[in-house]
């Protein structure tokens, strides 16, 4: 073996290890990418195809036929869509706002010098880890018309009992309250982490300079908390659009269609009435407000950031 050969072999080996280093990197990513492509992206594309199809069942099999815009034109004429859409939007907008305010308040309180901090943290986090199905049942037991603690309380302070789950005027509010009970912890958690990341010296320095409570909050805490606020609202907004579990248990979408959400509507149309193609079209409309919401929110946030840093 000549010197030349040895040098060549070395070079080849180097090239090989460089190559394998790249391959190793990709191997680390591969399982995640593959499973997401197979079970999120692929079904998403299939749903788009489904929404332009007619599905028939023959001999236990499922056949797809191209149906053009039939599902879509039917869908946009369907009042049930606008009902489900507005119900969902109300739950998202009011739910996220209320949960943000309560979550922020609780995070500020818990982040102060208080006794029993650990206890409050554990307790305030807990509801987000419970099964929404179980929370739905708890909600029903709390809001039930005849024998519930809440109506009993109203009765004792001299007010009329409320048909929380059976009256069309308040059922959506009841869902919103239950949703708030379960998901305020997410806001609390993200904002608390954000608050804890703020260096104590900033606040101390400002308070030595004579800043009072509200000024401290407005000019020191809030700007430093901006990215946590952003994450919290964005995360909860995306999740809130998916609301369904507690509705299934508490009202089943009723009374009438008073609390039917987009997800529930898509499920009922797709797998209970068993019009899968129509269900696919319904579910896809849910994607539009989610993307729009994210877009608008990020644009606003970017402008806000530019204005504070510039």
């Amino acid at each position, binding site marked *: 073996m000549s010197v030349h050969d040895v040098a060549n072999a070395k070079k080849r080996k180097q090239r090989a290890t460089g190559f394998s280093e790249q391959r190793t990197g990709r191997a680390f990513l591969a399982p995640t990418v593959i499973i997401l492509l197979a079970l999120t992206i692929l079904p998403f594309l299939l749903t788009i195809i489904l929404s332009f199809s007619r599905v028939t069942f023959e001999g236990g099999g499922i056949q797809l036929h191209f149906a053009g815009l039939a599902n879509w034109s039917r869908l946009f004429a369907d009042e049930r869509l606008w009902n489900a859409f507005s119900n969902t939007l109300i739950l998202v907008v009011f739910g996220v706002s209320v949960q943000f305010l309560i979550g922020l308040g*609780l995070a500020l309180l818990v982040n102060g010098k208080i006794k029993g901090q650990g206890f409050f943290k554990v307790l305030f986090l807990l509801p987000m880890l419970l099964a929404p199905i*179980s929370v739905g049942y708890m909600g029903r037991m709390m809001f039930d018309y005849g024998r519930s603690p809440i109506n009993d309380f109203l009765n004792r302070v001299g007010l009329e009992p409320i048909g929380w789950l059976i009256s069309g005027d308040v059922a959506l509010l009841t869902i919103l309250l239950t949703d708030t009970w379960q998901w305020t912890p997410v806001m609390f958690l993200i904002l608390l982490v954000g608050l804890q990341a703020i260096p104590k010296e900033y606040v101390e320095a400002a308070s030595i300079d004579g800043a009072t409570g509200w000024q401290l909050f407005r000019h020191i805490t809030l700007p430093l908390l901006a990215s946590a606020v952003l994450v919290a609202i964005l995360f909860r907004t995306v999740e809130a659009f998916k609301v369904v579990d507690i509705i299934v248990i508490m009202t089943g979408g009723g009374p009438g269609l008073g609390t039917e959400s987009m997800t529930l509507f898509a499920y009922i149309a797709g797998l209970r009435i068993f019009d899968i193609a129509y269900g696919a079209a319904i579910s896809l409309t849910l994607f539009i407000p989610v993307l729009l919401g994210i877009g608008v929110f990020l644009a606003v946030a970017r402008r806000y950031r530019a204005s504070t840093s510039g």
Partner: protein
Amino acid sequence: MVKKKRLLNNAATYGMLLLWALIVLFPLYWVVTTSFKEIGDVFRGPRYIPWVDFIPTTEWWYNIWTVQRRMLLGPVFNSLVIATSSSLFAVIFGTMAAYGLERFRFKFGHMKNKDILLWIVSQRVMPPVITALALFIMFHFAGLLDTKLALIFVYIAAHTPIAVWMMTNFISQLPISIEEAALVDGASRVQVFFRIVLPMVAPSIAVTFLLCFIFAWNEFLLALMLTGGRTQTLPLLIAAQHFQRGPQWWDISVLVTISIIPAIILVVSLQRYLIKGLIPIGK
């Protein structure tokens, strides 16, 4: 004067904290006590305090352990198997991807590491109902409808982004020098990953696993759409109580109490890690 104001402030702080604590605790208290109430005590209006308002009974717990055990054990077993195995894979895949993203430079088209991470995490944005109908058809053709495997696959896909998100945060905090030393000494990447990185992030892996486990344990919609009678999970069993025979609150309360036990164990034992590990703000 100042002292008085501080006292007032303190009172207001604790007042508000205790009010929310009461709001959180009361429904839990209610469901647990209802699981010990006689039927009459449930229907004769709210009875609050055991031994004062009502005499507690262990009948329903006894009942579930004897008469209805088979009804309960199947779904609990299914939920355990599905949640455990899906979370295991989600955490393995997530840890691998997080390590890859932290230690290698990628370029797919114009996507670099940050874009890839964002792409992975953004999969959570997709409302599950959108993919569920298509998955229903896919699993129909694959013969996987109403099997544990279907839900395991789906939950891996649903929870891997969370695992990647959390593990990226944890791995980015590791000192890189130990790994470099090992690489110089001739260890391979795979050896470094298994022998050095994994032991260092083992506690974080446990936290991530438990969180994925809880999410899978609680999941309802996908289970509802992709399984039938053979693969009932615990949330499906609980939901079915109401559809099948009207609300029998005492039985439901027992099931609900059972369903929330893992969450309570998790949050009490891991609250410190949860708060630290979950959200890498400002990254």
